[in-house]
């Protein structure tokens, strides 16, 4: 059984059918890419998995637990969280408080400190700015803070939404290097990105979304970049279906 199993998922935004019959599997200790253009429904899907968006029908199973209708707080306690699109840092809190808040469910102050040191080791720049308010960070640092905060929850599966949005190429490269270290800690990753090439080279398995549906899926190494690009933009889709 996969770590995360999504079956026949449907999500609505009012009357808009945003996610249509999506099924997905994430194996433990893998890196899974989810790609698609703006408005394809990636973030809606992620938020539905995390209990932020309401699910109309279908099921989400994480480590054997049915989390389809669970509260976000409960899902996090099971070991699944995300660093959301737009990073959603706590603006009025210091970097350190942002990170410590990630370990909210951890009862021991000592353990929280230990996790904090681990994150500072992974992202030294956050340590330098630990007493500053999150609102003064740059885009790349905010992304690191969001990832660091999510890691403070000690997730088994971490979903990174829109990992590269609005960031300079050199910063993106840096973040991917750090994600590799996250993976080495035994955390399973789902990475949402818009760059086809980068996603295929940095993941084991790739899902392509278009207009609320999964239109292509496969092992990243075996996928043909041209075919993925076609699926991404919806070119020749009608032909394939026929």
């Amino acid at each position, binding site marked *: 059984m996969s770590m995360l199993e999504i079956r026949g998922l449907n999500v609505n935004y009012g009357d808009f059918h945003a996610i249509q019959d999506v099924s997905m599997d994430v194996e433990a200790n893998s890196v899974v890419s989810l790609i698609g253009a703006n408005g394809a429904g990636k973030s809606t899907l992620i938020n539905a998995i995390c209990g932020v968006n309401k699910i109309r029908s279908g099921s989400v199973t994480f480590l054997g637990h049915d989390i389809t209708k669970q509260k*976000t*707080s409960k899902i996090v306690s099971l070991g699944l969280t995300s660093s959301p699109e737009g990073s959603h840092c706590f603006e009025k809190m210091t970097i350190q*408080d942002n990170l410590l808040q990630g370990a*909210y*469910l951890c009862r021991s102050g000592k353990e929280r400190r230990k996790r904090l040191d681990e994150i500072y080791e992974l992202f030294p720049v956050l340590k330098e700015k630990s007493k500053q308010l999150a609102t003064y960070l740059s885009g790349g640092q905010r992304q690191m803070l969001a990832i660091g905060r999510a890691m*403070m*929850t000690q997730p088994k599966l971490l979903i990174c939404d829109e990992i590269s949005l609005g960031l300079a190429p050199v910063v993106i490269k840096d973040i991917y290097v750090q994600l590799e270290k996250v993976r080495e800690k035994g955390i399973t990753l789902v990475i949402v990105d818009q760059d086809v090439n980068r996603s295929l080279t940095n993941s084991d398995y790739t899902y392509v979304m278009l207009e609320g549906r999964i239109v292509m899926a496969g092992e990243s190494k075996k996928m043909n970049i041209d075919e993925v690009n076609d699926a991404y933009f919806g070119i020749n889709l009608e032909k394939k279906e026929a």
Partner: protein
Amino acid sequence: MLQYLVQGILLGGLYAIIGIGMSMVFGIMRLTNLAHGDLMILSAYLALTFCDLLGGNLLLATLFTIIAMVIIGFLIQAFLVNHVLSKGAEPALLVTFGISVFLANLLHNIFSADYQSLPNSLTNTQVISTDLVSISAIYLFSFVVAILMIVGLHFLMQRTNFGRSIRATSDDDMAAGLTGVNTKRAYVYAMMLSMAVTAVSGVLIGSTYTFNASMGSSYLIIAFGVVVIGGMGSLIGTLLGGIVLGVAQLLGSYFLGTGVQLLVAYLVLLVVLATRPNGLLARATRK
């Protein structure tokens, strides 16, 4: 003059206590609690009732009042405010207005319109009484309680895991949820905490002044002034706001006469609003 200044500062402590509960609720869930004054008057009546039942032990009655108000805070947040909070500011505002009207009428029906006061031995005691200044014990006591409560709450909010989770929820509730906070429950805790503070303020108001069922709105206005001057949601600002309002009121009374003292206080409020619309201590953020 010195007497008025000292008296104004001490009155500021009492005003700060009136404002704290409201400031917290606003700071945490961006909710202007229009029932704040009536909840305070409710606390005073509860303390009066408990006091009668307990044979005049005001300290014990205060403890019971705090417990009762915490339960009421739970009911208000869990069953009323939480249901409308996600629908924007106005529905929640209307709910608190409804609570305000309901409480004022309920109290009027139960306790009639007669003025009441709590039997507090501090009320008529002077701590210092010289030719230059005299300080009433109840005002000094209120001032000390205000400082203790603000320091205590500040510590709770800034230094504990619980306080951090409340701040996180108020900052970005979606992100707080992703760190494992049950955000609806966090709001319930915040309201319960605010009601505990409101209970204390009700007892102090009831000990310092006489009160009746229809006075909630006048205390709401004072709370509003304090919170706006200090900066909505800032605890330390609440103390500052209280002192500014208290000193303005008593200096106004000294220079212009007792009749216009509240007018002077609200003029100061207007000046602060015009020059620093976010309040004296509100932190500017990018959001």
